């Protein structure tokens, strides 16, 4: 790749936009065209107000006037200065990129949209060019020489630059695939994170982030579902599970002194197909209670594992994260078990400890059934349910009938954050292989650390930016289509709530014959509950494999 993109080519020769030779121009002077289908609606004023974040007002990205405060340039300058001083990584990442281009063709948004400004190096360069102009010594010296600004790759902060930042930093899902290929280890996601923090200083968030954050802050979950409705939904799942299994799997709510507090993204409780994964959790907890006396509680207050504060600012992320630990402390549980989620785990694994940790009022997580110490969670006290279930299977603690999933020809999508953010690569595969007969990997350059993003993470799973999402999903879909055609794969397993929603839409557009399943839905189907009836249906009320034929034979 490095032989493909030379720095001067990147900086000076990009003919941006659908091929129009008439105005080649320099990329730094091109004003951005915000295109419907590619951007998300602006944050509602009331959602911004809830968190007392600045400049709450109605505004529209398509209008010329973004209704910014008069001193918006000063706010950006101060915001950048503060962050360059506070976050060493940000400062280093601004300085050390040599523009080798190794990341250029690694981004799913670049591969899908074909827009050069979605090359991670160039997306970051949008911000670096202003950094060089305002902060770097070399940039300041060069700016005094005629033509020096172009030489330094520097440009002043203008309204056009801000709009371009906004457009492209909301075309990054912070998935970090590019950073895997960077010889310097630059984490481009952190550059996007900083850019989005700057936007929030001006009230420039998108609504698909701002309103969930506001809901979560006020009500406890992104969808703004109040405690009684949260309980109603779980009660309803309990009825469904009883219809399928004949066993009552009613959970505990806010039970003081329970062994473990369980927290999952609210998408599992309210959005298909995550709801079936949620039923899988309930079945597992009932099994463990019945067999081993494990006491798990849910909470209608800490009813959100996800954290869209992560896509807003580090302060907002900290505020939302704190409630999970406050609830664990209030209930007096030993440790926290977390559901199948993506960015939730990057927040827990990489940021929680320095934000709200150490959680020294909780115990170091030990699986009471197997005795396994989860040493990776020693400080955060929060264990991923896939690690927990894999450990139970490894020690022979679960009785499983994998034939119930034998109609599922599986592949597995590594979600960016658990895979690249915390190294959960083998546990989900181990669980799948123990609950399913048929498993085929997608090609190696599209899985594990090199996994392609769903294209809808980091708050971009809105409806209005569907073209962007489908373009970003293309590299993942391309690999999925391959295993669908080669091995007859009909099921895409994943351990992320956003993925369960986003990949379902991806499949509808790109590979219509594939369905999306959470791993614990498959566990729920396979697990043999004590006292269960002869099961004939899976959790989706579809006939179990073999049952359909038996019925038609009669």
């Amino acid at each position, binding site marked *: 790749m490095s032989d493909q993109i030379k720095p001067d080519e990147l900086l000076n020769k990009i003919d941006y936009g*659908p091929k129009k030779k008439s105005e080649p121009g320099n990329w730094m002077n091109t004003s951005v065209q915000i295109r419907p*289908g590619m951007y998300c609606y602006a944050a509602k004023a009331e959602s911004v107000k809830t968190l007392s974040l600045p400049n709450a007002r109605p505004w529209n990205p398509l209008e010329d006037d973004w209704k910014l405060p008069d001193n918006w340039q000063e706010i950006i300058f101060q915001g950048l200065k503060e962050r360059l001083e506070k976050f060493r990584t940000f400062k280093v990442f601004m300085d050390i990129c040599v523009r080798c281009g190794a990341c250029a063709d690694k981004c799913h948004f670049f591969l899908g949209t*074909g827009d050069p400004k979605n090359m991670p190096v160039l997306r970051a360069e949008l911000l670096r060019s202003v950094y060089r102009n305002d902060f770097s010594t070399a940039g300041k010296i060069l700016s005094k020489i005629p033509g020096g600004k172009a030489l330094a790759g520097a440009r002043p902060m203008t309204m056009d630059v801000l709009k371009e930042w906004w457009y492209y930093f909301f075309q990054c899902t912070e998935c970090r695939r590019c950073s895997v290929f960077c010889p310097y280890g630059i984490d481009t996601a952190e550059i996007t994170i900083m850019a989005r923090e700057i936007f929030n200083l001006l009230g420039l968030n998108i609504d698909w982030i701002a309103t969930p954050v506001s809901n979560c802050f006020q009500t406890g979950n992104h969808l703004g579902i109040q405690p009684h409705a949260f309980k109603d939904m779980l009660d*309803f799942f309990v009825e469904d599970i009883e219809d399928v299994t004949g066993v009552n799997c009613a959970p505990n709510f806010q039970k003081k002194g329970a062994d473990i507090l369980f927290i999952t993204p609210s998408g599992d409780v309210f959005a298909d197909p995550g709801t079936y994964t949620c039923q899988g959790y309930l079945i597992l907890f009932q099994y463990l209670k019945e067999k081993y006396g494990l006491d798990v509680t849910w909470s209608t207050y800490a009813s959100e594992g996800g954290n869209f504060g992560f896509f807003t600012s580090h302060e907002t992320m900290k505020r939302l994260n704190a409630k999970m630990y406050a609830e664990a402390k209030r209930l007096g549980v030993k440790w926290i078990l977390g559901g199948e989620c993506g960015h939730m785990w990057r927040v827990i694994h990489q940021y929680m400890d320095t934000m709200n940790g150490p959680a020294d009022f909780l115990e170091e997580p030990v699986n009471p059934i197997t005795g396994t110490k989860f040493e990776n969670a020693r400080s955060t006290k929060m264990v991923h349910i896939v690690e927990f279930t894999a450990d139970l299977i490894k020690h022979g603690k679960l009785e499983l009938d994998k034939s119930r999933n034998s109609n599922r020809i599986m592949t597995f999508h590594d979600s960016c954050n658990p895979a690249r953010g915390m190294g959960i690569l083998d546990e989900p595969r181990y669980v799948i292989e123990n609950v399913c007969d048929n498993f085929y990997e997608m090609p190696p350059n*599209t899985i594990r650390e090199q996994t392609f993003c769903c294209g809808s993470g980091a708050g971009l799973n809105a*409806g209005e930016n*569907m073209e962007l999402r489908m373009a970003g999903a*293309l*590299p993942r879909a391309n690999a999925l289509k391959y295993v669908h055609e080669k091995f007859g794969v009909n099921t895409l397993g994943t351990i992320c709530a956003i993925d369960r929603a986003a990949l379902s839409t991806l499949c509808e557009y790109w590979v219509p014959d594939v369905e999306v399943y959470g791993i614990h839905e498959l566990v729920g189907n396979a697990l043999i509950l004590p006292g269960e009836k002869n099961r004939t249906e899976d959790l989706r009320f579809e006939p179990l494999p073999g049952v359909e034929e038996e019925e038609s034979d009669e």
Partner: protein
Amino acid sequence: MHLKQILKKNRGPFIKKWFQATIDTYPEQTAKILGKDSNRFDNPVGAVTRETIEGVFSLITEDFSQETLEKALDPVIRIRAVQAFSASDAVSFVFTLKKIGENILDDSLIGEFDKIVDKIALAAFNKFMKCKEEIFLLKATESKRRIHRAFERAGLVAELSEDDLVSSKKS
């Protein structure tokens, strides 16, 4: 010689030129990467574009219908329908075939060849519209289908059923 036989004979140059003309509809830096003959999972748009062009070209050297043309064009149009192309730019790559034909074919065959290109263009436009309609439908029904179904099951809403909401897709 019959046109289809001549097309078969010149398959190599036709495909090479048509592929290049198609990826040249992207910005220059992007076209450079798409043109690389790299692993098809590292370069999905380049690979799918190449495979589709090969498929469509094979088809026009045999018997084809509007339906089979649309099917063959699907992978590449499906991609271009979500990219920053206007409707005309999205299907413009088909018309580049005319110029390629002029350079390769004998004058007496140009008229017949251009008629085939027109058929490909019409099929491409049909496919483009179908893909756009799919996108609009996804936009319209995605959140309703996900959230509404769960709420409906829990008896928290009593409005149109989920089937009613998506029935337009089935019809």
